[in-house]
Every structure is written in structure tokens, then in C-alpha cells.
């Protein structure tokens, strides 16, 4: 069958819901939270309209139970999906470890939302980045299309490496903003993503298994190593699945860091998620104004694309790392990770951290231009003014 995309104008959340439907998820357990809710509303609508078969919807009493129910479902062999944001993700934290430790390929959409207090429902990456050590893969979507593609690819990758995966989109900027998304006809999704074939399930009554039994100090260590290894192996799987996706559907995801006009760049902007759309637009304008700049969009934060970062870093003079997140007592989280990766290499560009857009503060093309001016001055002078710049701060 020849690939002809079905174009729909949908929000990021609806893109996520359609992807879950096209992935033929079998169990959805979820709890409402703004701005995630329209994902599970849409899925409920699919069920109400008879558009899906064999999909069990479990309207749990909390996000903690949402993840616990997905864990039970996945351990029993089902393809399980959920979605959440901020406080809900934080409540799930314990069970995120459980999902990864039990090696269950659950896929979850997290709509990035700022943590309270003060109450906020707007975009901020700290919720998902605070879960970085739980053993989940993390994919950051730039636009609604990437939300859709990310969910489909994540199931395939997760079910290959037996680790759960999180697909992350921005509150409102993507979740509630409508855009054209090219969807894939069901038969072609089925070819790309066949039914899940779990290695072990609770339904094997001839060979009953026990999942998660006590691991003594003599064994626990090896269990952890196996997760570390699976996460490392996931890089290869991500590149292969990303390439296959490109060959089948025309959008290539074989690069864990998407490079935009970086070939001859003096310096680049690096960041994740929807703000990189703004950055790309700014790069075009800056290029016209004579700046030799590019953009490096980190698609996968876990596993971290260290090799690709090194290849980029050795060819540029500076990297402006844009963090829509912050680790108190340290610095922006992407900045911190990127510096760590490069320490034991020969690539040492000037790196500066710009803390931008926390709690949904607008981050515009004009802001990128100001950062470019600042970055150029730093590179010309050869030294940093400050390492961590609270760029928007009202002074």
C-alpha cells in the first residue's frame, strides 16, 4: 500500500490521542489534569463512538493509580498508555521507577507544565526532567506532528528495549494549539507497529512467573546494570526506528539531535521541545542579518545523545543552552548534562546557560536575537559574562 498521509488539523493533545488509537493501545488508565485532559477525553470519545475495539479504559482515582494500573496491564501483556502533567507526574514518581524496574514498555505523554506553588498550568520542563533518573526514555516534541510520530515510534522502541517511554509536549503551545498533522493510514501503522510480543507475561499459566521479587545485594546490582545497558542499547534502536519511520513516512528521526543550519555555524542554540520552533525561525532571520548561527534540537533526553553532542560541539565556538527548567542549587538541567558529557572530550566550546520561559513566560524570536547578540559578544571577547543567565528576570 502506497503511503498517502491523512491530513488533520488537530491540537497536540488530539495528535497524541490519535497516535494512541493508531497504535491500537489495549489499556488506557488515566486521571484528569490540565492541560493533559483533552488527550483522555478524546480517547474516551473514540470508545463512545465505537471507533476502537478491545480498548479498556480505566478511569482511576489518581495518577499514582493510573501508572499502577498501566503497570498491571502491561505485565499482563497489554499495550498500555497514559497521559499526565506536572503534579500528576510527580505523584506517579514511585511507579515510574516500578515500570522501568519491571521492564514494562508503557508509553506516556507528559504535557510539560510548571510545578506548584505558585499554581501554574503553563509550559515548563522541570516536571519531566525531575523524572530523568527513573529509567524512562524521554522524547521532546517540537510540534504536533512530532507528538503524533513520537508516540508511534516510542511504542516500537520501548517494546524493543523493554523500557517505558515518555513523549513530552508543551502546555498550551502544543497541547491546545491546532496545526496540520499528517496521520498515517491504520494499515500502514500496523505494518510499522505490529502487536506487542512480550517476552514474559502474567498470563502464561503453564510457566507462572513472579515479577519484582526481592533482589538481595547479591543480585540487585545486575538488575540495575541491565537497565543501564538497555538504555544504552536504546540509542541504536532509536536511530534505526527513526530511520525506518523516515523511509516509510517521509519524516526522518534517525538523529537524536536534530541539527538546523549548523554546518558552518560559529555558535548554536541548543534546547528541547516547542521553543526550538521559535529558535529555528530566529536562526533564519539571524542568518539574513549575517550571524552564522544554527539550532540543535535535543529530541531524546534519555538516553542522552552524547555522541551527537560531541560531534556538534567540536565544530562550533559556542553553545547557548536554552533551559525551560531549573535544578535549584545548580543550573539548567540540559546545560548541566551537556557540560558533563563534554568534560572528558577535546570539544570545549564556550557554553552559556539561558534560563527561559519558566512557567509559560513568552519566549519569542526577539528573545533569541538578544541572546544571539550576547553570545556573539561573549565569543568575540573569549570569556563568559555569567554562566547561568536568568534571562527574563524583571530587574
Amino acid at each position, binding site marked *: 500500500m502506497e503511503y498517502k498521509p491523512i491530513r488533520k488539523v488537530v491540537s497536540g493533545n488530539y495528535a497524541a490521542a490519535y497516535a494512541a488509537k493508531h497504535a491500537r493501545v489495549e489499556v488506557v488508565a488515566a486521571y484528569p489534569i490540565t492541560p493533559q485532559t483533552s488527550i483522555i477525553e478524546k480517547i474516551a470519545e473514540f470508545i463512545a463512538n465505537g471507533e476502537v475495539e478491545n480498548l479498556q479504559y480505566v478511569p482511576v482515582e489518581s495518577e499514582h*493509580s493510573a501508572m*499502577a494500573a498501566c*503497570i498491571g496491564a502491561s505485565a*499482563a501483556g497489554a499495550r498500555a498508555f497514559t497521559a499526565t502533567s506536572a503534579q500528576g507526574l510527580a505523584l506517579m514518581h514511585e*511507579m515510574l521507577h516500578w515500570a522501568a524496574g519491571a521492564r514494562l514498555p508503557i508509553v506516556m505523554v507528559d504535557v510539560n507544565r510548571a510545578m506548584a506553588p505558585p499554581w501554574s498550568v503553563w509550559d515548563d520542563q522541570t516536571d519531566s526532567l525531575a523524572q530523568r533518573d527513573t529509567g524512562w526514555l524521554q522524547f521532546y516534541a517540537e510540534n504536533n506532528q512530532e507528538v503524533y510520530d513520537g508516540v508511534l515510534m516510542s511504542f516500537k522502541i520501548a517494546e524493543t528495549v523493554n523500557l517505558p517511554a515518555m513523549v513530552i509536549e508543551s502546555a498550551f503551545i502544543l497541547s491546545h494549539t491546532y496545526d496540520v498533522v499528517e496521520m498515517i493510514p491504520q494499515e500502514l501503522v500496523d505494518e510499522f507497529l505490529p502487536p506487542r510480543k512480550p517476552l514474559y507475561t502474567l498470563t502464561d499459566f503453564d510457566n*507462572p512467573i513472579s515479577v519484582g521479587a526481592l533482589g538481595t545485594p547479591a543480585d540487585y546490582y545486575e538488575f540495575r546494570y541491565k537497565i543501564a545497558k538497555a538504555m544504552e542499547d536504546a540509542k541504536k534502536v532509536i536511530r534505526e526506528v527513526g530511520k525506518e519511520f523516515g523511509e516509510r513516512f517521509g519524516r526522518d528521526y534517525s538523529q537524536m539531535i536534530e541539527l538546523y543550519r549548523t554546518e558552518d555555524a560559529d555558535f548554536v542554540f541548543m534546547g528541547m521541545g516547542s521553543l526550538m520552533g521559535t529558535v529555528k525561525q530566529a536562526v533564519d532571520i539571524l542568518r539574513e542579518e549575517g550571524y552564522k548561527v544554527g539550532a540543535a534540537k535535543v529530541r531524546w533526553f534519555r538516553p542522552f545523545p552524547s555522541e551527537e553532542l560531541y560531534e556538534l560541539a567540536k565544530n562550533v565556538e559556542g553553545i547557548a543552552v536554552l533551559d525551560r527548567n531549573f535544578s535549584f542549587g545548580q543550573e539548567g538541567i540540559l546545560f548541566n548534562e551537556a557540560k558533563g558529557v563534554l568534560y572528558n572530550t577535546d570539544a570545549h566550546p564556550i557554553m552559556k546557560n539561558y534560563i527561559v520561559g519558566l512557567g509559560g513566560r513568552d519566549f519569542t524570536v526577539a528573545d533569541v536575537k538578544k541572546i544571539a547578540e550576547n553570545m556573539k559578544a561573549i565569543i568575540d571577547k573569549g570569556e563568559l559574562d555569567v554562566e547561568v543567565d536568568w534571562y527574563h528576570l524583571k530587574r
Partner: protein
Amino acid sequence: MQIPENVKKRLSIPADEHFYAGHTACQGCGAALGLRYVLKTYGRKTIFTIPACCSTIIAGPWPYSTLDAPLFHTAFETTGAVMGGIEAALKAKGYKVKGEDGVMVVGWAGDGGTADIGLQALSGFLERGHDALYIMYDNEAYMNTGIQRSSSTPYGAWTTNTPGGKKHFLEKRHKKKVIDIVIAHEIPYAATASVAYPEDFIRKLKKAREIKGPSFIQLFAPCPTGWRAPTDKSIELARLAVQTAYFPLFEYENGKYKINMPSPKKEPKPIEEFLKLQGRFKYMTQEDIESLQNWVLREWEKLKKLAEVFG
């Protein structure tokens, strides 16, 4: 020893064993005995969810399993939710759930994991109507962590965090009536049971297998270690808990209450008979004992009334 098939059929307790010897329970453990009965009744086609509790240890460390049936170990407060997820997956995949030839989804959790930290997930499980059985084995404290009080610990009991002492710092509250909370969800079937009355327990397990929707059994499971009692007194203690009406046996089925006392016409024995065999009650004053006795009789009258009005 091989039991002939014709004899097997007449046994009131199934001959089949799906709970392996060599498990790591303490001597006289009521929970281990209860789990053995569950496995005898349901066999291999049973998916267990076990949260943090004594049974995490009893089930054995990796790569061993005491249970000859699939088992998912889960976090303390998640039994109800994980069971719900498993049941949903079975439905999505077209398995027959419950009935003699169906898959039985069983939650097996202690009183702390049920009455305290797991109460929310239990409530969610009950109200959503999952087709599964939740068993709370009640040993009346956090025994696996070393005998700390739970909301299911009785009035006047010593535990490691109600140690008595000069200030008479003992458990000050009566046992939480978890089964009443469960019944408030208007589920089709809820019952109490005791390891001292295995035929009654097994009959209730079989009933839970046939009933559509969520069911709940609160199983009284003595813990000699935590109760500071001789290990050969477990069954006697469990029997006395019933005979004193401290832990009466009853069923709630589709809105109707039915008392299942072994000797229905007998008046309850004095609570002292249950208390005196256990070191955990040795710090109680006469006043404490009276207070507990009054509570037991008041609750017993309430139950009889319920059975009379909604029988």
C-alpha cells in the same frame, strides 16, 4: 502421598497444592496458611498482586517463588490499581475472567497495605467494579517492618510504636472497620473469614469466584511473632477471636447480611480469653479490657441487627 481421585472429591479442603514448601514465613504464620488455602482453591490460573507486606518475603527472593501461580510484586499502596490494570488487560485480550475455568485476579495484601496506605486504591478498585477479588489478610499491625501499629490494630495493644511504658502509651483507638468501608461501596460480595475455619473460608473463595464484579474478603490471620504468642496457638487464637465475637464471621451479598458463626446460639465468650494468650495485651488495665469488651459487644449487636433487618 497420592490421594485417590474418589477420595479427593469428598474432601472439604482441596488436596491440590500450589504453595510450595520451604517458604520463609515465621512459625505459626496465619498469612502463609491463608495463602495456601487460596492457592488450593483457585490453582494456577490465578494472577496474584502482592504489595509490600509479609507475603513479599514469604513468596521468596529472586529467582524463587513460593507460589505456583503468576505473581506481580507491587508497591505498598497500589494493590487495587494494579489488579484493575491486570483485569482490564485480560478483558482487552479476550480472556474469560472468573468462573471455574476462568482467570482469577487476586489481590493479597496486609492490613497496613489495605486499611492505611492502600485504602485509596482499594476504594478505586471497588467503585470501578473490576471483576476481581481483594483479600486483606489481617494480622493487625505492620508485621513485616517489625510490628508497628496500623489502623487495624486493636485497642490496648502493644506494638513497637505503641510501646506502653510509664505513660501507658498503647494503641488508643479501636480497630478500623475496613469491611464497613468496603460495604459502603455497595459491591456485590464482601465477607470476613478466619484461618481457624478453612471450610468457611474456602466456601467464600468459591463464591467470590462465581460472583460478577468486585469482591472482598477480610481474613483474620494471627501473627505469633507480632502478637507475642506461642507459635502453636495461632489456630486457637483465630478461633477465640470468632468465639468472643471480636472478629465475627459474616457475609454481605447484594445488600444482604448473613452471620456465619460456627455456634450461632452460643453467647460470645469473654474477651479476656482471647487477650490472655497474647503478650501484646499484657499492659492493658482492667479499665482497658472493659473498654475493649464494650466495643466488641456493641459492634456484635450492631452486626446482629444488620443481619436481622437486612438478612
